[in-house]
């Protein structure tokens, strides 16, 4: 069974600074996808970034980038130039295309301070 671990329950960062959120996972699969979702207080789960396991290149989306280490089963999210609107819960998720279900970690609460 796949598992996802987020070891940082809470993080804080000052506006305009950079922060990195950690995620590790466990799987015996070779083909899978990894995601970071953001959940602000409004509750809507918003896609931040997606990584295909077969791609060695790390995914980037504007200020968001990942450090994907397949052998180490690590998938961290880096947020550059943090903004107040980045304040939210961040969930790392594993996706097995065979079952098509997402397995989520317990989340990291990120607070961005002015």
């Amino acid at each position, binding site marked *: 069974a796949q598992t996802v671990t987020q070891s940082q329950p809470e993080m804080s960062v000052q506006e305009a600074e950079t922060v990195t959120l950690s995620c590790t996972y466990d799987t015996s699969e070779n083909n899978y996808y990894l995601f970071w979702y953001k959940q602000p207080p409004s509750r*809507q789960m918003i896609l931040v970034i997606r990584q295909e396991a077969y791609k060695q290149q790390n995914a980037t989306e504007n200020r968001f980038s990942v450090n994907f280490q397949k052998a180490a089963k690590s998938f961290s999210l880096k947020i550059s130039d943090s903004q107040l609107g980045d304040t939210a819960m961040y*969930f790392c998720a594993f996706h097995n295309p065979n079952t098509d279900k997402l397995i989520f970690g317990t989340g990291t609460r990120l607070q961005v301070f002015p």
Partner: protein
Amino acid sequence: DAGVTQSPTHLIKTRGQQVTLRCSPKSGHDTVSWYQQALGQGPQFIFQYYEEEERQRGNFPDRFSGHQFPNYSSELNVNALLLGDSALYLCASSLGVGQETQYFGPGTRLLVL
């Protein structure tokens, strides 16, 4: 481009009652997955519907059932409600099965008293 919509936004029920939650997928999507998110936890997969059939199911009892309609919208039904069923219920839609990203709706907050 309409995103995923869910109704109602909030619901209060008492133990033993039954509840129905509704989800309309993002325009162009045909697959709907349901998740339960307890307070302070990550979402847990309940089941997935594709081509009006339940394709996958998580570790949830038979009290949780669902349906998908020909227009791809979906319902989640929970019978004999327990206090522990209080949670945020999220619907996610995608195109086909397996490869595509799931996009989430705003959720329905269910409180069981």
